[in-house]
């Protein structure tokens, strides 16, 4: 049973880090795609959405190719900093981040597109600089939609299996998350361990959903 708590702690750590990364990436890229017009925007949008439709194992394979010690980024990281990402919990974070990214990106983009550009213009004529316009007008008005996307992304990262297994493997206490531990327990015929892990996972998921309901604040009217 001890192993279940270790796996739970690791799963929350990985999902939490992945969600924090997606907050920065998803909000930044979502805002850029909502407000800027440039050639190749539709193609870029499709590429950013790809992780949502591609099988996680395929994504995991791509990540292995790129981040492995023979891959372009993995090789550079090893040479420059001596960092290896494959079979580490940080590797699991990257896998979960990539898989959950479209959920934040799509939600943020739609939320920013729902903010009337005229409100941002009004702030500009009042002498407020561009960064402050973002933090005082665009972000507060888009926040509800972004938060909904973040919670979905957290839930998705909690349950991540395929890409994580490819990139980080299944090392108990190091990279073995809850969903992978369940699979390993069933494969090994350890029914009691599997039952316990499944119960823990279910309770965590219900808790996340309840927290989501409390976190999302009351409706902010979009139009004056």
């Amino acid at each position, binding site marked *: 049973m001890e192993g279940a708590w270790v796996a739970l702690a690791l799963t929350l750590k990985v999902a939490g880090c992945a969600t924090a990364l997606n907050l920065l990436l998803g909000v930044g890229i979502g805002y850029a795609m909502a407000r800027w017009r440039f050639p190749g925007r539709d193609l870029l949008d499709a590429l950013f959405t790809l992780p949502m439709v591609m099988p996680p194992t395929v994504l995991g394979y791509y990540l292995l190719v790129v981040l492995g010690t023979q891959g372009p980024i993995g090789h550079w990281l090893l040479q420059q900093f001596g960092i290896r990402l494959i079979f580490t919990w940080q590797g699991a974070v990257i896998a979960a981040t990539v898989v959950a990214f479209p959920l934040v990106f799509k939600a943020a983009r739609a939320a920013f597109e729902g903010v*009337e550009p*005229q*409100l941002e*213009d*009004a*702030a*500009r*004529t*009042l*002498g*407020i*600089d561009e*960064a*402050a316009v973002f*933090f*005082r*007008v665009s972000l*507060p*008005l888009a926040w509800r939609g972004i938060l909904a996307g973040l919670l979905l992304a957290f839930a998705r990262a909690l349950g991540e299996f395929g890409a994580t297994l490819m990139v980080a493997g299944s090392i108990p206490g190091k990279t073995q998350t809850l969903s992978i531990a369940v699979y390993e327990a069933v494969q090994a015929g350890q029914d009691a361990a599997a039952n316990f892990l499944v119960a823990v996972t279910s309770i965590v998921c219900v808790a996340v959903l309840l927290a989501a309901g409390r976190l999302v604040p009351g409706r*902010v*009217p*979009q*139009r*004056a």
Partner: protein
Amino acid sequence: MSWDIALTKTLRHGDARFELDVRFASAARRLVLFGPSGAGKTQTLRLIAGILRPDGGRVAIGGRVLYDDERAIDLSPQSRALGFVFQDYALFPHLSVRQNIAFARRRGWLNPAVAQADAAVERWIDTFHLHAVAGHYPHQLSGGQRQRTALARALVHEPAALLLDEPFAALDNPLRRQLRGELRELQALLRIPTLLITHDDDDVEALGDEVVQMKAGRVVGADAPLEAVRS
């Protein structure tokens, strides 16, 4: 010269093209931009405010050059110091009336607090009789209160000139008359240059010393107000 405007802009919307070529100069403090809807009045105001980028031309208000393509001058909307009252007021829906009015008083990345004490903000709340609704949010306001809040928000910024885009369009008739009177008093009190867009003859008479008429993206005549309306 209060107003020295020459602006060109090609606007595209799908396959449709709209050529805007607006030129007028006037020494009048209270100027009215008059014309049918679709004449390009709002876009002209947005070009002057700098929230729409012109293709070329020149904007000078009260001798201050805000835009001049030949001299490569293009002040950001932030540094033009113009008060802009939008047609549907564009109040910030997530901020109370007091926070909306105080918006320009605070720099930085945070909005003004719900309960802040700022003498300038309170003075404008007084002037526009907004005390009872100062803690309310824009969706809780009547049309007249919204208009007053938008005016107060623009004036707190102490603009060098005021641009008003059909400020009475969203109001019904008795209220329109009342607020027109209030704006007229304000113009007399503040002596601030105002450029007001309208397609209503009564606005022209009450609020303009001179009128610039627009049609299909061009200026078709500049006159004293009464003659313009009667011709």
